[in-house]
């Protein structure tokens, strides 16, 4: 038998969860940025900023779960794993888009933020002692000439990554809060 599709709109839940987690993600991203700017470069690829960055991503992954919880509470319905996944992935993409917009708006608050962050990254590159001066200069030139291209590509990958992470937590949410017993035999 075809499963009965839940037709009630999930947009209210998605917008609510993505706004909450978009703001959290943005605040933590900016906070990490200032932490990097205000601390001396380590030259290591696995410094505290990388660990904080991973933690920020993990926090933002729970937006999908919150959206599913809200949807289930709002309509008191049983939802499938698939519906949870859809709500999760849409929430994740919205979190990515919102945080991208917020970070750009932050440039009006602190116009030097991006350039200071880039300078710090260049200083970190210089602190890597296994790179030759020529190699370092090449990367620095690349960062200056193609900085905006890298920023856009980076934002697209961040948004996709948040979509995938929230897809998973959306499915977990569907199972935890009101998931029907799925037929799990492949």
């Amino acid at each position, binding site marked *: 038998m075809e499963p009965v599709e839940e037709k009630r709109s999930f947009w209210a839940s998605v917008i609510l969860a993505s706004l909450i987690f978009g703001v959290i993600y943005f605040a933590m991203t900016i906070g990490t940025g200032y932490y990097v700017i205000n601390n001396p470069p380590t030259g290591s690829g696995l410094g505290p900023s990388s660990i904080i960055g991973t933690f920020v991503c993990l926090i933002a992954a729970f937006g999908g779960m919150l959206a599913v919880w809200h949807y289930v509470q709002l309509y008191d319905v049983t939802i499938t794993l698939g519906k949870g996944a859809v709500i999760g992935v849409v929430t994740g993409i919205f979190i990515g888009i919102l945080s991208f917009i917020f970070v750009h708006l932050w440039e009006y608050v602190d116009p030097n933020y991006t350039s200071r962050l880039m300078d710090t990254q260049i200083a970190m590159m210089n602190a890597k002692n296994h790179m030759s001066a020529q190699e370092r200069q090449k990367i620095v030139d690349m960062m200056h000439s193609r900085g905006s291209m890298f920023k856009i590509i980076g934002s697209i990958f961040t948004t996709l990554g948040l979509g*995938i992470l929230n897809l998973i937590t959306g499915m977990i949410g569907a199972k935890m809060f009101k998931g029907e017993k799925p037929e799990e035999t492949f």
Partner: protein
Amino acid sequence: MTEIEKNAGTNESRQLSWMERNGFPMWLVVFGWIIISFILFQVVGSVVSLVLIYYKTGHIMDLANTSNLKKYLGLIFIGNTTGQILFLGLGTLLVTKIAAPKGKVFSYLGFHYDKSIGRLILLTILLILAIQPFIWLLSWLNALIPFPQSYLHFEDMQDKLLQDFLSGNKQVYWTLFNVALVPAFCEEVLYRGFVLNTIKRKWGVTAAVLLSGIIFGLYHIRFTELIPLAILGIILAILAWKSGSIIPAMVAHFVNNATSVIIAFKFPNYAFSSSTANSMPPLIYVALSIIVSGYLFYIFIKESNKSIKGGINV
């Protein structure tokens, strides 16, 4: 009409997949897996390359550095091939388990062979060779689209690396394995197997053929060759759909890539000068190519219609 034909595509009679039973929309599974497999392929490919380089040199290399890329391109190719086999190939086989009815993974992907397919494979090989000047024309047209200089520089760097690898490497069979055999199998399983057949079940064959071709073009991240790659993807999708088997498309893909490798080995000067899309191919070649490949395509469709099931048998 055979029993298979009667059952294929009717919602009432066909068995539901795990994906359908659990309310997963088709677009999420298809596009989700394309993105996830691509990211995993890139990440794991890079990690394998780094581990191999570390094993060989004893220190970690920065792969963003072009001179390192050049020096260890052979090992980077091994990483790339490993990523393709693990995620585009084997990963797709696993994901197909959730999209296909129980126990029908291979027939869903189009792993079907009988005597008629043998004849179609022969036609496919001739078709893919005959169509090359037309593909060259498409590359030239694509090159007329303006791109930012920084992006063109990135593609030039990729071309230079490939050129160095092909001209510096004397192991033709190993190169054929990495550049032709593995992509022909893995990319076909993903695009003409999983993507084509999953989209076809929900949105119909036209959407399936067009979307699988366009996504195949985009997946290569070479925007200066997007049009020829997408058209090639659409042609391969039609071959897979009309023959009801993924095998002719696999052979066509292999022949297409292998031809480039062999030309690069045998005639390096010709390969690396004329392959540039900035020159228009001689129009007589293009005209002949369109006529001959059009005729071969027509024969292929006619032969397929004679013997075939018109797609997946699930």
